[in-house]
């Protein structure tokens, strides 16, 4: 188990081990999250090292004590911006200067303004973001799984070429083609306004195009670790390819589906550049664009309401992330190495 709870990364040889571990952990039961957090927060069952005298204190310090000091310094460095923004979100004064007295007063004024101020349609932004991110991640997972299945389990002409193309394509961020995407969407608007500029559907289609290269490759690697004997057996029993895909493969590759889904979800929530070009109506926009605009003009005046919005936007992402960080880290590793 201790093997499992450590984020594993690294060599080619190990990647399969990581994936195996991920598979095992997820296949086990639905208690992974509790297990992870429990394991992480559990204090270790070792006799506490209590310095008996100066000599052994010095020894303890040279061995471990300084590590605690470094760790606490790192934690202060890591946490203070987060605590600062939390404090600012609770501060009723709501300006930059007013936010500098950490936790001096606590109220929910800023949070209430978020949902009551008609100039700040935060609720709409939040829902838009959730819709776009959910649809994008579900569709990405499904389309990538289809592609990875074909690449992993079928042999056809152009297969190697296809894989190599995907590998090369994923090096080029979609953002580079932002001007072309913009003009293309204008042209699509002329024919089908429903999926053109300013629509969620249009934005989701763009995201799908950008996500497929990387993620098909990530999934392909994982599909390859599932022994072909399993689906061969099902085929011998008379299952067609679709049945093998839906009832044998998909359950076996659930971990990578979750990793790709979560990564896409988090990535889509944070995407700013393309969304800001495509979504022009304030009520259609996402949290990222809305919060950016809140502080791009009147940073100081809107600081409190921005902080509240940032906390609400960050919380779900951080919770998802921390509960699944080792799987995500594992997925990142296998993705970027491959």
């Amino acid at each position, binding site marked *: 188990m201790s093997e499992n709870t450590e984020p594993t*990364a690294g060599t080619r040889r190990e990647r399969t081990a990581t994936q195996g571990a991920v598979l095992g952990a997820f296949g086990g039961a639905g208690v992974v999250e509790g297990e992870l957090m429990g394991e992480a927060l559990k204090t270790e069952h070792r006799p506490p090292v209590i310095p008996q005298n100066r000599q052994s204190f010095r020894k303890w310090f040279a061995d471990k004590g300084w590590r605690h000091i470094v760790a606490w310094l790192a934690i202060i460095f*890591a946490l203070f911006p987060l605590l600062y923004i939390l404090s600012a979100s609770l501060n009723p004064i709501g300006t930059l200067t007013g936010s500098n007295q950490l936790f001096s007063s606590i109220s929910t004024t800023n949070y209430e303004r978020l949902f009551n101020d008609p100039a700040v349609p935060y609720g709409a932004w939040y829902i838009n973001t959730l819709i776009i991110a959910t649809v994008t991640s579900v569709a990405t997972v499904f389309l990538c799984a289809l592609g990875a299945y074909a690449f992993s389990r079928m042999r056809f002409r152009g297969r190697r070429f296809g894989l190599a193309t995907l590998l090369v394509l994923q090096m080029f961020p979609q953002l580079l083609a932002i001007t072309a995407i913009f003009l293309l969407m204008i042209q699509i608007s002329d024919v089908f306004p429903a999926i053109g500029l300013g629509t969620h559907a249009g934005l989701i289609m763009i995201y799908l195009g950008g996500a497929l290269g990387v993620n098909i490759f990530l999934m392909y690697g994982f599909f390859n670790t599932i022994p072909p004997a399993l689906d061969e057996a099902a085929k011998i029993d008379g299952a*067609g390819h679709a049945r093998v895909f839906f009832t044998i493969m998909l359950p076996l590759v659930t971990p990578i589906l979750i990793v790709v889904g979560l990564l896409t979800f988090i990535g889509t929530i944070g995407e700013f550049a393309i969304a800001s070009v495509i979504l022009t109506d304030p009520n259609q926009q996402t949290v990222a664009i809305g919060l950016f605009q809140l502080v791009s003009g009147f940073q100081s005046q809107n600081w409190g309401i921005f902080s509240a919005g940032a906390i609400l936007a960050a919380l779900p992402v951080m919770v998802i*992330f921390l509960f699944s960080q080792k799987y995500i880290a594992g997925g990142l590793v296998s993705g970027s190495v491959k």
Partner: protein
Amino acid sequence: MATADQGTVNEGSAKQSTTAAPANRWGDDPLFKPKKRLTSGGLLALLVKVILLGIIDAVAILAVYILVGKGDWIAAGVLVIVVALVNFVYLRPGLLPGKYLTPGLFFLAIFQIFVIVYTAFIAFTNAGDAHNSTKEDAIAQIISTSQDRVPDSPSYTVQVLKQGDQFGLLVAEPGGDLSFGTNEQPLEEVNGPPDGWDELNLNQIIRFQDEVLAVNVPISDDINDGTLRTSDGQNAFVFTSSLEYDESADTFTDAETGVVYVDDGEGNFRAENGETLTPGWRVFIGLDNFASVFTNEQIRDPLLRVTIWTFVFAALSTLVCFAFGLFLAIVLNHPTLRGKKVYRILVILPYAFPAYLTGLVWAGMLNQEFGYINEVLLNGASIPWLADPWLARFSVIFVNMWLGYGYMFLVCTGALQSLPDDIVEAGKVDGASAWRIFRSIKMPLLFVAVAPLLIATFAYNFNNFGVIYMLTRGNPRFTDTTLDIGATDIMITMVYKVAFGGGGGRDLGLASALSILIFIIVTVVAIVSFRQTKALEDIN
């Protein structure tokens, strides 16, 4: 779309059962018993497939109809070919990989591959705010924006009508006849208000003030005749353009000054004194965008600095994140350190914090006058963290470190823990000190493990739009260029700002040319990366 593919995939299996597919392994299997698959599920799947394909085809036919109506034959032709291919893939037995790959390939081909080609295409045009449409649109727009009220022209009594978000004018002509028109449709005689259009009352006229002011109804089909406009929603006047368009000569003549504007072949009507009319229209300008990148010193010099900074930023960010992450990983990688796991969770919290918010939060904290860092931590200092070019560059890297070291920490922790024990043991047996073991055994092994990740991180930071744009938006601006480019801009933010930024006019053509340059640089990085990881040879 996704459900469509699901249905068709289901069906693929039923088809498969009746015909051996040459292109895949299913049909070759001698133990494969097709008969078992001929169930009602197959019929249902067939039904779903036919319905979904039918919907796709119907939508496609509609789209082709609209495209042909617009005269866009190329797009219509491409669409017909694509839809025909989709039908072929899903209706023909076999072609199993095609059935699985088509849905993904569809989006990939349009929004990843096609847009790259299209970017290259735009790089050879003058597309941008000043040249965003066709010549006909430009002519109409020039006429409509250069209009003045005809002196002593009569006033017409009008009503403003509204349908959806469209506005029109119902005009009572002096003779008593009624006529109606909108911005797109010139005045036509009518007997009464047309169906479906509602009259605006006074309240609504005030509410929709901007829209009412924008109503601009052509009097006849000839745009030189002028248009009707109303400023109060009740009385309208005839406005005509001081610029007259001569269709046969393809020139504009200013009625007052007599200046003639001629099509200059570069997407503008230009007078002899060099003055141009706005807007222009989109034309091919060949290599001009690339030429100006390399010769126009307003662009060339800042671009050079931006390019160098992009490399420095990507390299330093990667290095700093890695160094700090590795350091923490080593510190916390002690077998009996108490609270190690709590430390680890807390230390990676910045990595879990959404990246786009990180920049915004730090921008507030680093604010020169009111920010927490200056006001509280530095006791009221006034350090221009984001306003001085070098301090801003430092701040960007610092904030990116806060954001990114968590990932390196995770990766290095994993790599350290997976180092084989026996080699370390062998070192100990040979009498090596702890430092020696670390330097000569652990570090080399660790580097082998994380080198590909460092390259990937470099590539990621090379186009790390979020941190830069959210923290500084590329500012502080360079003083020696009119373009909106600044000291912390990396190439990708520069492209974004040139294409969609505020001041300086949006120039999509130039932005595309810059994109193409980045593509070339990324390609070089990619080649290095593939050499390093040998990933391409690995494909099997």
